[in-house]
């Protein structure tokens, strides 16, 4: 880095050099699995699932939430929590610069989006990882936003649903990142103690410290098809055991067979299936009230009518 670059602010420094990355994405793209040519706006409407081969491409946290929840307005949680650089971490690049560049390319403060919204008419809290933000890595901000979402769910008695897509803990925040594993796990224990459902959806990829904390702690663990889900990545294991790993090792289907997850659900079916599960775990109060006619008050019927989908 020249002396001139050194004195520039991070924002300006990351502006140049990466011009290629700033070109807006084209309207046409290729499926990463079958190479079918896809019209991007249509692909996004389909939740980035390839219509030809069914490959589930990665979704940003925000697109994920939009695809999953009802059209009802959502309320974002802890939107202004931003990353710091406590260690003044620097490898080939400064962590600070990486943050600024990633914030610019993703439009997000950090790798987790947290909201309160509605799923088939039921209030839920949803958190979703953004793999494009430094590999969805979990640092202080991800941990903090996740526990704030859990705390909101606890306060309001709502279910929590997380969509994991992460390489693990964020190295650049070192032990701060590691501690987010126990921080998020502790908050989830409170959800369990309060009898509130936590549904963990594992998407491609969910590995390392995220897999070994919040992602594997769902009351129900659901994976999307063919997602890589593991503690240690295939390359690390190959180096350790010095043998080639079998086809499909650490993919969703393998985890289902080994008993680590409850089910594999395609992206299109996730909203319906999770709504069903929530209804089984915690039927909405008005559904219970309606079975006992003498207990029905006129205004409660109206409440039930307001949420017709919730009792489906």
């Amino acid at each position, binding site marked *: 880095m020249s002396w001139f670059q050194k004195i520039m602010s991070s924002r300006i420094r990351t502006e140049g050099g990466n011009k290629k990355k700033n070109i807006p994405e084209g309207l046409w793209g290729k499926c990463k699995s079958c190479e079918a040519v896809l019209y991007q706006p249509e692909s996004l409407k389909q939740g980035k699932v390839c219509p030809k081969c069914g490959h589930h491409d990665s979704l940003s946290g925000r697109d994920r939430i939009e695809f999953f929840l009802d059209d009802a307005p959502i309320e974002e949680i802890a939107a202004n929590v931003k990353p710091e650089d406590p260690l003044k971490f620097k490898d080939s690049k400064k962590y600070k610069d990486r943050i600024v560049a990633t914030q610019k390319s993703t439009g997000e403060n950090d790798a987790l989006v947290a909201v309160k919204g509605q799923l088939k008419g039921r209030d839920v809290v949803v958190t979703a990882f953004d793999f494009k933000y430094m590999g969805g890595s979990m640092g202080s901000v991800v941990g903090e936003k996740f526990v704030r979402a859990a705390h909101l769910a606890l306060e309001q008695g709502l279910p929590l649903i997380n969509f994991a897509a992460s390489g693990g803990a964020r190295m650049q925040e070192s032990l701060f990142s590691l501690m987010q594993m126990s921080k998020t796990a502790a908050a989830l*224990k409170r959800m369990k103690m309060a009898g509130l459902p936590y549904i963990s959806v594992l998407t491609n990829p969910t590995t390392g410290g995220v897999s070994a*904390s919040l992602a594997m702690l769902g009351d129900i663990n659901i994976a999307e098809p063919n997602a890589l889900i593991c503690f240690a990545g295939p390359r690390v294991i190959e180096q350790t055991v010095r043998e080639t790993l079998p086809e499909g*090792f650490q993919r969703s289907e393998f985890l289902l067979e080994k008993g680590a997850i409850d089910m594999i659900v395609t992206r299109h079916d996730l909203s319906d299936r999770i709504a069903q599960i929530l209804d089984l775990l915690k039927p909405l109060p008005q559904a219970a009230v309606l079975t006992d006619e003498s207990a029905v008050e006129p205004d409660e019927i109206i409440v039930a009518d307001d949420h017709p989908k919730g009792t489906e």
Partner: protein
Amino acid sequence: MNTDYLDFEQPLAELEAKINELQNVSDDNSINIDEEIQRLKDKLKSKTEAIFSNLSDWQITQLARHPKRPYTLDYIDMMFTDFQELHGDRAFADDAAIVGGLAKLDGQSVMVIGHQKGRNTKTKIKRNFGMPRPEGYRKALRLMRMAEQFDLPILTFIDTPGAYPGIGAEERGQSEAIAKNLEVMSHLKVPIICTVIGEGGSGGALAIGVGDVTLMLEYSTYSVISPEGCASILWRSAEKAQDAAEALSITSGKLKAFGLIDEIIDEPLGSAYRDTEYVAQQLKSAIVNNLKRLRELEQSDLIQKRYEKQMSYGAFSE
């Protein structure tokens, strides 16, 4: 070169060898060479002081992995009485990379759990180099739940390069085993004191490291990833491990300054293996003091304080 010593300890190893040689000579011949021995001992001391007053983070990493460093069973031997080792996770196997059992600390019953490394090829393999598989973490969890049942404090000793990255470990749910421990430890109803005695290797360390107090021996390390692993990912070369060790802030002093650990346990000049009894005494008194304080808390306060401690971890702006 003596393989029991690290690179930067070699000058000390040479001096010690000379002193030993002279002592043997004086035993044999009764020639008075005490003066020369004393001179060498003084030199050894000043040389050790010089080296240890200016250790790099990479050197501390090496000390944390020193082949002569005391391991969990050594501390159990020195600090506790009546140790009864308990085995197995009741589901799959007994993992020798984690040891645990009942013991007495100053006459009081406690549950002791720690990673265990081996000293020679045979025991290193038996202990899997201190890298637990899921059944190790599940054994630890079983013992911790037993401790809760009998209202016994839990003392853990952390010393692992990390959880084992193997095929079987993945098949049996390494992630779930670690995650479950984090969840359960956060709300156990008994005091938990965790001490990093050597290597605090990432999730594999934290899986027995959630507690009311975290202690760290002076020359131990605690990190989200090994310096070698970090270097090979971020610098694309494992040879940059020294730079990574520095950047990751993994030493007791730095972590204490960040508020990520609570207390540093003093080690003697030349690190723990030079005077293991001293370290054991220091550690024991720190544990006894903390235990006394934690025992005075109401159960609900104990759990709430532990929860608030977990929630306080993180550096962000708003």
